[in-house]
């Protein structure tokens, strides 16, 4: 691309700049266009989970449904509540979408196909996540509505709490691959990290689900709770942008899971033929996204205090222990800093897998014991209460 522009006679710097500009436009548009398709996909799959068809009227198989919805929302009136803080109110949905789009700049879509391979890619991911948190606070505050403010506080407490185990889970692939750049992590996965560190992948998935405000952690937008939480006062396209931002964030999490834990664009033949890598990445992220949808349709919503307890009393200690144990085992295995091929990676992967399975077993046993104790406690209380009547 740069060469084409240079041939036109532009200076080197300007050619690079324009090439990057075009790259930005392509990545941004791809992200937003994907939203249209993805929303349709989500509604279809949700319908199937709930034993119904999902949208199927508008266009073949309901494919045009998303576009129709987008047009409809654009034609709605934009109501700004009185006393709302104009600038902050208008900025919040924009910031919400920008925070998600920025993540797409560092995702490797194929061999050599990456917006920019930052040497601190993982750090950049977390930093951009923080921007999303600010948009929640801005939305809740500027609506001049005590309920949105409460919703925003709860939202920030949730987002901020689950960032800790998410980052702790992100550090493990950095240890295994010795690099913070996403392309480096993909290239280090001669065997998918999913097979080596399944517990870490699970922790990342769970905490990301809470980070994007998706079921079972969607307390903030549950219709029976505080109406729509921090988004209540938004109407028309601004609400549409919040919705798009949230949805895109969900797919971006699936994309990240595929990149960090499932080998990204790697697959047979992907090193030589870059578009094939894109296909592999899409397949893997659709699988991860299916898991996200599956959990959303299956599990009931969690209460805010349950959610925070789950984080600080279970997930954070678990992720810390996971990090320490994986780091320890990684040091015990010899030659881990020279993994260059599938063969080299096999033994460390197997060792880590066994350790992870052991950890999962231990956690399972602990949880079962805890569950048994809780149930015994509740039974004891019920027995005490029921006694005078049933005697």
């Amino acid at each position, binding site marked *: 691309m740069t060469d084409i522009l240079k041939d036109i006679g532009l200076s080197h*710097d300007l050619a690079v700049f324009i090439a990057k500009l075009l790259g930005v436009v392509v990545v941004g548009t791809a992200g937003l266009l994907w939203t249209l398709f993805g929303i349709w996909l989500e509604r279809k799959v949700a319908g199937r989970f709930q034993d119904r068809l999902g949208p199927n009227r508008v266009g073949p198989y309901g494919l045009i449904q998303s576009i129709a919805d987008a047009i409809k929302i654009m034609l709605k009136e934009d109501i700004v509540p009185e006393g709302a803080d104009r600038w902050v109110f208008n900025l919040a949905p924009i910031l919400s979408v920008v925070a998600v789009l920025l993540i797409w700049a560092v995702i490797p879509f194929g061999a050599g196909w990456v917006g920019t391979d*930052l040497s601190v890619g993982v750090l950049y991911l977390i*930093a951009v*996540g923080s*921007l999303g948190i*600010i948009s929640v606070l801005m939305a809740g505050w500027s609506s001049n509505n005590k309920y949105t403010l409460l919703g925003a506080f709860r939202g920030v407490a949730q987002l901020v709490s689950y960032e800790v185990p998410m980052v702790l889970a992100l550090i493990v692939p950095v240890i295994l691959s010795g690099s913070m750049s996403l392309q480096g992590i993909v290239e280090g996965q001669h065997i998918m990290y999913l097979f080596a560190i399944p517990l870490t992948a699970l922790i990342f998935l769970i905490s990301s689900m809470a980070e994007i405000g998706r079921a079972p952690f969607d307390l903030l937008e549950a219709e029976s709770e505080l109406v729509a939480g921090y988004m209540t006062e938004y109407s028309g396209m601004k609400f549409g942008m919040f919705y798009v931002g949230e949805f895109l964030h969900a797919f971006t999490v699936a994309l990240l899971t595929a990149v960090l834990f499932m080998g990204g664009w790697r697959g047979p033949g992907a090193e030589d033929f870059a578009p094939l890598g894109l296909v592999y990445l899409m397949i893997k992220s659709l699988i991860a996204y299916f898991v996200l949808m599956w959990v959303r349709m299956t599990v009931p919503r969690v209460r805010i205090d349950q959610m925070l307890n789950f984080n600080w009393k279970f997930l954070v200690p678990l992720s810390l222990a996971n990090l320490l144990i994986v780091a320890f085992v990684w040091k015990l295995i010899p030659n881990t800093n020279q993994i260059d091929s599938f063969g080299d990676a096999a033994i460390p992967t197997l060792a880590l897998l066994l350790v992870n399975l052991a950890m999962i077993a231990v956690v399972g046993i602990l949880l079962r014991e805890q569950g048994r104790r809780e149930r015994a406690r509740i039974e004891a209380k019920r027995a005490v209460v029921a006694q005078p009547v049933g005697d």
Partner: protein
Amino acid sequence: MDITAESIIFVIFSVITLGGGLLMVTTRNLFHGALYLMLSLFGVAGLFVLLTAPFLAGVQVIVYIGAIAILIIFAIMLTPQVTQVVGMQNTQWVVAVILAAIFFVTLVSVVSPIADEIGVDNWNADFTVDNPDDVPADSITDMGVKLVDQNHYLLPFEVASVLLMAALVGAVVMVNPTSLGKRTPPVTYDAREESAEDVSA
């Protein structure tokens, strides 16, 4: 001094940083002040990137903007009259201005290369290299190695952990959660002064 793309970007980020700071201290609305603080910190992150310290830029956004600024906003919520701070409540502002000027001169003399030419001994040359490309590519890895190296930064590293622990213990003790909600009445505040009139007829 030639005007390269780098210097233009430097000027932009400096304007963001200083402008954000200026807006932050002059605005009457505390919440806006917090947002301007975030803008200013974002400008600092940009300056770190220009100094080829992307790790610090990331840390700046993650810790300062993503944690401390949010903490500040939560602390602001405890203040009444968030939107209309009334007048200046500081009667010692003359002393403050003098101190700020002295501080400014000191900082500039340490950091500025002009001081080198005058002959003032400054540390600028010890910390910096003249060209971004001279910064080694693995400086973060190098930092990681030095953090756990006994001869370098191991002790400050562990002491930092003790400091964090002390901070948490202190915060828990001060808030005293065992009697939360029972001791003092909860703090209330007015989110908006303008909506003081009821809408009901």
